[in-house]
């Protein structure tokens, strides 16, 4: 079995590299789109009560549709390839970011806002220097869980010609070849773990105060 895996990796090195690159490209584009929409939407939701219900419900309902179904439903509209894959993955990734952002902003203690106003901060400064930094840990936690979900689900992109590691996994399923299934899924797992590692580095850079105590 191990020998089969090694043979395949040796014979198809450049193919595998290409699939990893495709996989990460789809995942990261989807994640960035989800961060933009999720953070903006989450902030909007935290500001207005009515908006909150509306935005949250919309994305929760979208999230309930299985990604595979979204992919196929999008084909008449967007065709096949990257676009529908990225859209479906973004829909998957938005809810955790959105919810966490909204909660993050709402849980900023009122006394801090009052003190900030007391020292004469403008609304804009308030957002940039008080609200956002205080909401950041929760926002990042939301992005973190979205990241893992997106990388795992990007496998499905291979169903509609968008490439990625799903190609190896689905080929393995079709041929009943365990070596391909192992290679595909282990690589997806490694990508997840690797991205999580890089993500914690980014978090340390963004929130140095959180880690300073330990030093």
């Amino acid at each position, binding site marked *: 079995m191990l020998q089969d895996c090694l043979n395949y990796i040796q014979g198809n090195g450049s193919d595998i590299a290409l699939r990893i690159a495709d996989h990460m490209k789809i995942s990261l584009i989807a994640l960035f789109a989800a961060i933009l929409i999720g953070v903006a939407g989450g902030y909007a939701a935290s500001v207005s009560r009515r908006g909150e219900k509306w935005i949250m419900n919309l994305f929760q309902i979208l999230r309930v549709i299985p990604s595979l179904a979204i992919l196929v439903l999008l084909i008449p509209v967007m065709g096949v390839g990257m676009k529908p894959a990225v859209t479906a993955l973004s829909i998957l990734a938005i809810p955790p970011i959105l919810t966490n952002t909204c909660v993050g902003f709402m849980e900023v203690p009122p006394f801090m806002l009052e003190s900030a106003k007391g020292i004469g901060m403008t609304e804009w400064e308030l957002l940039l220097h008080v609200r956002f930094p205080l909401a950041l840990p929760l926002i990042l936690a939301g992005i973190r869980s979205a990241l893992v979900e997106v990388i795992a689900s990007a496998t499905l992109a291979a169903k509609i010609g968008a490439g990625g590691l799903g190609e190896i996994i*689905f080929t393995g399923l079709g041929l009943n070849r365990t070596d391909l299934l192992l290679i595909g899924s282990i690589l997806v797992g490694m990508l997840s773990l690797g991205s999580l590692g890089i993500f914690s580095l980014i978090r340390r850079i963004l929130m140095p105060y959180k880690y300073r105590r330990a030093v």
Partner: protein
Amino acid sequence: MGSMWRKMTATALAFAVAGTFSVTAAAGEKGTIRVGSKDFTENEIVAELYALALEDAGYKVERIMDISSSVIHTAIINDEIDLYPEYTGTGLISILKMDPLTDAQEVYETVKEVYAKQFDLVWLAYAQANDGQGLFISRKASDEYGITTISQLQENASKLRFASQGEFDEREDGLPGLEKVYGPFEWASSKVYDNGLKYQVVESDEADVSPAYTTEGRLSETDKFILLEDDRHVWPPYNLAPVVRGDVYKENPEIGEILKKVNETLDTAAITALNAKVDVDKEEYEDVAEEYWESISE
């Protein structure tokens, strides 16, 4: 537990039926024949056609449709069905695990001989219809580059976009097998899609070429899709033929003639058209079979 009980009852019933059947056969009446089918459209239509032909000839028919392809051989050996439509290539490669042959007659003779010896099963006369591996191309690309055979496809591969299902690129009877005979296929691009999307992908001009099975209903839309000819015969033939239990055939040798009436009308185009009625026009396979049977039995 429930299903096991059902199976036991079915077997008991089958014995009872077989019992009555040999008695009544002696009295000059015809008994019950259990016709089975695999779990996909084409096989169900053909099995239904066999059933109708047998009923018209005076037999009672018990239909046991939709048996998983991987267990139907075991079902006929275990005396749970009497006959079902099988493909010569499947018999040779999947059941007997022999090396592929490419001549239709040779494949048929081989499975006929080995089945009789090994399983006491009889292969009746086969139909021209061939449900094998194939490649199709969009009408547009076919017209533009003048491609109707796989040799011509190989020469023009660098201008064409290939839509694979992944496994075709790896399977021994897929691309690797083709390349051994036709030479390398250097596609302009090659992407993997879900098998169910291939016609959609080619129709919407996202790709030009894709693998298919040669009797799939949508191939009847020849204004959109052209099935390429395997001009150097890489793929083994998968001709349709009824496989019958040896004891049943011995007692009712006229089954051969009855089913031949169905089989000799079934070529690849006829089967493809029947599949299209079910898979594309969404008719019921029983209705499609009945309509066809009426058209050929007159």
